[in-house]
């Protein structure tokens, strides 16, 4: 294996954590396979990013172009295609972020390269690579192999690969990449930040969080009662926002907020990784769910396998009684 290439992404002058996670995994694999680790970062002014990436990478390609402010999929695809065709890395790694999700499948088709997305782990053995993915609501892991190929493309699950500290001081190579294409068919119009809402769930000491298992908007009142009994706030997983039952400012997870309360009480939440990523900072996690196989139980400190609509009203009573 000659080279492993990690595609770094940045948004609003910040390098994405997931890129450092991918570099850490890439560093491990490169050392194991005696390969070079190459990082590529693309943008208008990427010096700062390049220096940071050089802590992990043996070589950083800092691709400069005046037209490229942020990490946008189409220009990145053109530039990466050209770099990959020239250097033929055995493996291209990037995060399964909104950026990677938009870019990787198109890049794979353009290059004719096999692709595995949202991977939990990667193994190199006997010159070939296998990738593990999580399927069926996290209840099964699937191990994949690939046909012999020049380049394999993999996106890694956000938050799954710990960032390891390195100080490689890799070489930085600046490349000026003229782009003739204007990408007029697709215009980036800007970012929209979430409006600050009335309740900041990130500062709460107790978070009572509800998921699909709450079943009906009317039952949210139960969670509110429990939260007020515990001096906490009500938050939720994605389906509750999708149904329009709570505003998005209450959503915990990858596309929502990260919380770090003393107690996270997960009611009727299955534990999809997109949600779990946002609650890992909690000191104590309690889950109530009627599905004993729900993956939330492998994260929780305490679990009750039962219907939340039966347990929660009783729990409110018991807490009120104990408080006296």
């Amino acid at each position: 294996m000659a080279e492993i290439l990690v595609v770094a992404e940045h948004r609003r002058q910040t390098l994405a954590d997931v890129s450092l996670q991918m570099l850490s995994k890439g560093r491990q694999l490169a050392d194991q396979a005696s390969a070079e680790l190459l990082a590529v970062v693309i943008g208008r002014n990427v010096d700062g990013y390049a220096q940071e990436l050089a802590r992990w990478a043996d070589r950083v390609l800092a691709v400069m172009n005046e037209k490229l402010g942020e990490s946008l999929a189409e220009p990145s695809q053109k530039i990466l295609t050209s770099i990959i065709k020239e250097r033929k890395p055995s493996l291209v790694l990037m995060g399964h972020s909104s950026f990677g999700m938009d870019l990787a499948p198109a890049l794979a088709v353009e290059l004719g390269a096999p692709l595995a997305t949202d991977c939990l782990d990667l193994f190199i053995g006997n010159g070939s690579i296998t990738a593990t993915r999580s399927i069926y609501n996290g209840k099964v892991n699937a191990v994949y192999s690939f046909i012999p190929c020049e380049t394999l493309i993999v996106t890694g699950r956000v938050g799954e690969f710990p960032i390891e500290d390195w100080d490689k001081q890799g070489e930085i190579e600046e490349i000026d990449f003229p782009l003739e294409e204007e990408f007029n068919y697709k215009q980036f119009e800007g970012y929209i930040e979430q409006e600050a809402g009335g309740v900041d769930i990130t500062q709460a000491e107790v978070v009572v969080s509800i998921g699909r298992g709450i079943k009906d908007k009317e039952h949210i009142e139960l969670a509110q009662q429990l939260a007020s009994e515990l001096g906490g706030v009500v938050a939720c997983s994605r389906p509750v926002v999708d149904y329009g039952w709570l505003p998005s400012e209450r959503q915990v997870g990858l596309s929502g907020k990260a919380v770090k309360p003393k107690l996270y009480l997960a009611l009727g939440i299955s534990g999809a990784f997109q949600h779990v990523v946002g609650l890992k900072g909690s000191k104590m996690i309690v889950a109530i769910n009627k599905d004993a196989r729900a993956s939330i139980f492998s994260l929780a400190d305490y679990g009750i396998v039962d219907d939340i609509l039966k347990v929660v009203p009783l729990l409110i009573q018991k807490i009120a009684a104990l408080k006296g």
Partner: protein
Amino acid sequence: MDIVTCIKRVPDTSDADIIIDASQREIEGDTLAFKINDWDEYALETAVQLKETLGGSLTAVTVGPKEWDDVLRRALAMGADKAIRVDEDMITADSYMVAGILESLLRSLSYDLVLFGAQSEDFGSGQLGIMVAEMLGVPHVSLVVSLQVQDGIARVKRELEAGALESYTIELPAVLTVQTGINRPRYISLSGIKRAMTKELQVLSLSGLSLSQEMLAPMVRLERLETPPTGKKAEFISGSPEESAEQLAKILQNSGVF
């Protein structure tokens, strides 16, 4: 405006026990219920709403065996005019193969907009729509949470991390992959179901599509399924709801939560 929505049928695994079968490559399906992929239902609702305001046609498409007709019937009941199923069991296929089949089919159809769910509930790789866009050579936007179409231009917002969005204008024809929560998929009425029975559901075979042999060989192969490592396991509180509530209240009190 002509819209094509690509949908799939998935097992409902949310509250089910999933058992890996003896081959270690499939799960036991006998006890599972099957449904339309969640993301695809949002994509269909998006398409039906666009058709209602802009007129034109809506075609629902899937690649799968006969049982998959039920999700196409559902699409027809929601408001699709026509459905097409490419009759092929894609169980050993990778996204490339399915994308190649859809590309070939789409080239024979008229479309301004092709909508996909952003990912599937079962395998969740999120590749298909973007691959099809690249194969067709049309622009794409993934993870769409808002969409307006006017004069051949789509204004879309797509979801990023941590509550942020980004907005694009994109020329049609285009492929969009739709994120959940973009709308509230309608309930299907009895009259909708009756009407769906009279609509056209076309079945095509692979041989009717011009596909190279290369397109029909997977690049990604499933080696085996495994039960995920459990990691740390919760300490389970057992008993009746009354008993477990009592015990949990005490644990919370002893931990200083209140």
